[in-house]
């Protein structure tokens, strides 16, 4: 149990730290690498939450798929110019303040609801075998959304192909 919480805080620190770095890096590739780190850390968190399947999906899909796509695109568009430009736009201060305000509000909301909403650590110790459970849910109860998601993916694929073509 101690190991669990140690690991959690390790992953959390890793995720937050590299997220901050990701937002602040000048070089986009570095940013991508830090984002990957964040995602991996999050995957670790998933693992701690006994969501192995989601962990795998996170690693294969997010890290192994989407982020590869990102890095691919980053390498296709040249960076040398953007390295020399300002990295933050004109509204950065206002934006930061507002974002922090929003964060504070959410914080407040959680705080207010904490007592009533989350009974401390009420976790059923024995969970069903995760992968099978997820599969049952996906192909049983969530069949329709699943298919819709697949259609969404198809549309996205076609859209991406059309847009990335040289001459549309």
């Amino acid at each position, binding site marked *: *149990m101690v190991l*669990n*919480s140690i690991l*959690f805080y390790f992953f959390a620190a890793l*995720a*937050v730290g590299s*997220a*901050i770095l*990701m*937002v602040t890096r000048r070089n*986009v590739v570095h*940013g*991508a690498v830090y*984002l990957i780190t*964040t*995602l991996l850390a*999050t995957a670790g*968190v*998933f693992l*701690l*939450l*006994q*969501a192995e399947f*989601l962990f795998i*999906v996170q690693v294969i*899909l*997010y890290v192994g798929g*989407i982020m590869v*796509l*990102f890095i691919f695109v*980053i390498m*296709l*568009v040249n960076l040398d*110019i*953007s390295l020399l*430009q300002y*990295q*933050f736009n004109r*509204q*950065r201060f206002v*934006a*930061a303040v507002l974002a922090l305000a*929003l*964060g504070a509000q*959410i914080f407040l909301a*959680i705080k207010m609801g904490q007592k009533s909403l*989350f009974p*401390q*650590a009420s*976790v059923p110790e024995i969970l069903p075998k995760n992968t099978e459970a997820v599969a049952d849910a996906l192909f049983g*109860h*969530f069949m329709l959304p699943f298919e819709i998601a697949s259609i*969404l*993916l198809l*549309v*996205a694929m076609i859209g*991406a192909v059309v*847009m*990335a073509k040289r001459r*549309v």
Partner: protein
Amino acid sequence: MVPVDQYLWLSLALFTIGVIGVLTRRNVIIILMSIELILNAVNINLVAFSHMFGTVDGQVFAIFVITDAAAEAAVGLGIILAFFRNRETLLADEMDMLKW
């Protein structure tokens, strides 16, 4: 055992960072990545709650979220590529052609 609210703080932090990134960075790719970060924070929430209630629905939703993230990334990057080919720039505040 880690209490649920810890996960929420984590996701809140990630979410805020993501929002800051989306609002302040000029580079479109980094903006997209920040959006991924936000989605990720949401996922943490979903999984945490699903773990709390001992059901997998949250994870299923997380999977859907990841699917959407994939779609969004594909289309977004496609747009970025096309845009870069035409305008030779990656800066969000130079993409104001809608205005005219």
